[in-house]
């Protein structure tokens, strides 16, 4: 009976997953364990020897290329060759294959990990660094055994709960969504890339559990609770049964939500809120219809730059924007220009900044590197033929940033006109409101922008001067903070006084307690990750706009976030008890 272990991380994507663990380590190596039949043993040994020989050839090849370099470099290869031919290692591995009858990549992997760990334990720094050599060698040999070009996230053989060190944008593109029941990753705070990408995959996910890969073994049974962030390894029969029941009630809830998918996001007294989707990866547009989204409220183009590992060409960008435009038509797609730090774009020449969150990023980079900016603008314009694309600029702090951007956009339009290339002349250009200074001059900005979209993730951060990924102060990152609410109200007011629409695309929009307040403050549009859309719609449909106007006014009178939260929770428990009265006690399953 394997011991049951319970781990706690941050809930990233809601839902429950029950399945066998499928491990992907930090080097992107699949860790699988297979039992061999007697007749398979010789073949397994042969595979091992072939892998060693192939690795040896690779190393010799590399050595040839490096022969001109310093003597020292050449030596490393010699040492690596010795490692590959290490008779003790080879004998030990082959003996273990025969004795334990397990697959060689599993055996070799564990053997190398052991050596790695011994080196890391050494007080000698030099030997600690040698652990890296072992790591490289391990990776080479195992990839030969498992098959070189294979992405570990693609082609899962059976439905599993995927456990990994990290999830990069590139990984998420190759992810086998049909077989992955759930996903847990070591790295990642709640607003990290890993979470955003996990949401894009739309499978229950948990992030930020240390040492996951050391604790979980391949084929362990995993229960992943994407509501509470809990991971249970090898659960007892009773716990397994409770979770199976929970899963069934969740399926029922899903069916319930499915009923309203194609109904409008309208309050009881008829105010319609445009409810759209936040996407990072082009393929997410598949989900829009399923969740009843009215177009794309935010397309985070930086993920395109991150997955390509280099700056994507105008052509590449245009094709993707075009595709999105076609898929959501006649609804709109709002394309946000790149919101990236300089470090991601110019890693070769980049000098580390002390305060990257207050530094050279997003629109600041674009206004300096205008060729990249204009390239993106040109790609967007060329894709705007169906007239359903809108452009949005991130991180606007001053008036000049907006007016300078508008000038550049006009330059690009002129270039296209001269080349007789078709585009939407009346394309809307709006801005993210995520920096307090922008809120304070919102009246001016509203005269130059076609719309506002409030980015609450950053707005909360910059207003309360809190680093959202810093554990020590994360309690200060208050969604219900009255100061933040005030800024939202002022933004909406300034926008409406100047006849432009105001939307909100931060995580706050997915917090069901905040939705009524935002509705009451007069928000025109909410954009959320597709997975949250149905429940936001459910809340909108359950309230009266006139009623919520008063509610939000009340909220603005409070002095603390706690008062706001208590007030709205109370109110909503009366209006929609089914959803707000702690319906399913997700965390209270008997351990």
């Amino acid at each position, binding site marked *: 009976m394997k011991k049951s272990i319970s781990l706690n991380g941050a809930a990233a994507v809601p839902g429950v997953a029950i399945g066998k663990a499928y491990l992907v380590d930090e080097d992107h190596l699949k860790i699988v364990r297979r039992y061999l039949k007697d007749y398979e043993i010789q073949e397994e040994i042969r595979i091992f020897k072939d892998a060693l020989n192939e690795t040896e050839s690779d190393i010799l090849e590399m050595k040839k290329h490096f022969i001109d370099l310093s003597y020292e470099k050449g*030596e*490393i290869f*010699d*040492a690596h060759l*010795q*490692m590959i031919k*290490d*008779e*003790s*290692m080879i004998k030990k591995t082959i003996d273990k294959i025969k004795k334990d009858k397990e697959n060689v990549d599993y055996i070799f992997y564990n053997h190398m990990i052991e*050596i790695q760990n*011994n*080196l890391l334990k*050494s*007080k*000698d720094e*030099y*030997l600690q660094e*040698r652990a890296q*050599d*072992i790591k490289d060698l391990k990776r080479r040999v195992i990839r030969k055994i498992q098959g070189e070009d294979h992405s570990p996230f693609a082609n899962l053989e059976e439905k599993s709960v995927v456990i990994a060190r990290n999830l990069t944008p590139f990984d998420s593109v190759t992810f086998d969504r049909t077989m992955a029941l759930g996903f847990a990753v070591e790295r990642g705070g709640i607003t990290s890339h890993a979470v955003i990408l996990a949401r894009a995959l739309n499978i229950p996910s948990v992030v930020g559990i240390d040492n996951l890969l050391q604790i979980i073994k391949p084929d362990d049974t995993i229960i992943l609770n994407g509501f509470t962030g809990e991971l249970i390894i090898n659960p007892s029969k009773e716990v397994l049964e409770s979770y199976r029941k929970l899963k069934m009630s969740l399926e029922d809830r899903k069916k319930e939500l499915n009923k309203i998918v194609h109904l409008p996001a309208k309050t009881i007294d008829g105010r319609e809120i445009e409810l759209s989707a936040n996407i990072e990866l082009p393929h997410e547009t598949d989900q829009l219809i399923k969740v009843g989204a009215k177009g794309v409220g935010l397309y985070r183009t930086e993920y395109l730059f991150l997955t390509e590992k280099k700056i994507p060409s105008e052509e590449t960008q245009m094709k993707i924007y075009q595709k999105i435009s076609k898929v959501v038509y006649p609804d709109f797609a709002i394309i946000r220009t790149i919101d990236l730090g300089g470090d991601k774009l110019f890693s070769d020449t980049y000098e580390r900044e002390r305060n990257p969150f207050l530094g050279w990023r997003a629109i600041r980079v674009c206004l300096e590197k205008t060729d990249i900016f204009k390239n993106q603008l040109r790609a967007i314009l060329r894709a705007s033929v169906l007239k359903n694309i809108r452009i949005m600029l991130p991180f606007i702090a001053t008036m000049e940033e907006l007016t300078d951007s508008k000038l550049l956009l006009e330059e690009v339009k002129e270039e296209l006109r001269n080349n007789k290339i078709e585009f939407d002349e009346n394309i809307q250009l709006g801005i993210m409101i995520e920096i307090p200074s922008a809120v304070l001059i919102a009246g001016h900005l509203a005269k130059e922008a076609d719309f506002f979209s409030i980015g609450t993730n950053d707005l909360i951060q910059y207003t309360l001067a809190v680093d959202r990924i810093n554990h020590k102060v994360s309690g200060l990152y208050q969604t219900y903070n009255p100061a933040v609410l005030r800024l939202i109200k002022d933004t909406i007011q300034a926008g409406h006084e100047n006849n432009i629409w105001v939307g909100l695309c931060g995580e706050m929009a997915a917090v069901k307690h905040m939705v009524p307040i935002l509705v009451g403050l007069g928000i025109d549009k909410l954009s959320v990750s597709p997975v949250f859309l149905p429940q936001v719609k459910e809340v909108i449909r359950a309230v009266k706009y006139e009623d919520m106007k008063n509610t939000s006014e009340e909220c603005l009178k409070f002095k603390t976030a706690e008062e706001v939260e208590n007030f709205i929770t109370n109110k909503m428990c009366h209006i929609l008890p089914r959803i707000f009265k702690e319906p399913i006690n997700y965390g209270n399953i008997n351990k």
Partner: protein
Amino acid sequence: MIEKELKIANENGFHLRPASNFVRIASKFISNITVTKDGISINGKSILGLMSLSCERGSKILISVEGEDEKKAFRELEQLVHDKFELK
């Protein structure tokens, strides 16, 4: 069998280069070669094994050689240790 305790004279003990040189010499011979330190015995022809033996300058290792060519093997290994693991 020839067995003798030798003192490590080079700066960093069994770092990659010394270990590599040791294995290079040891592998030339058919005799069994064992290196023991603090009670742990390692196959002298295994670079992975030797790398895990961290030895500071001045520490002592026991080298045991047994086999047909043990005399020559031991002589060369002793010379290597004496030369601070540099191959001449």
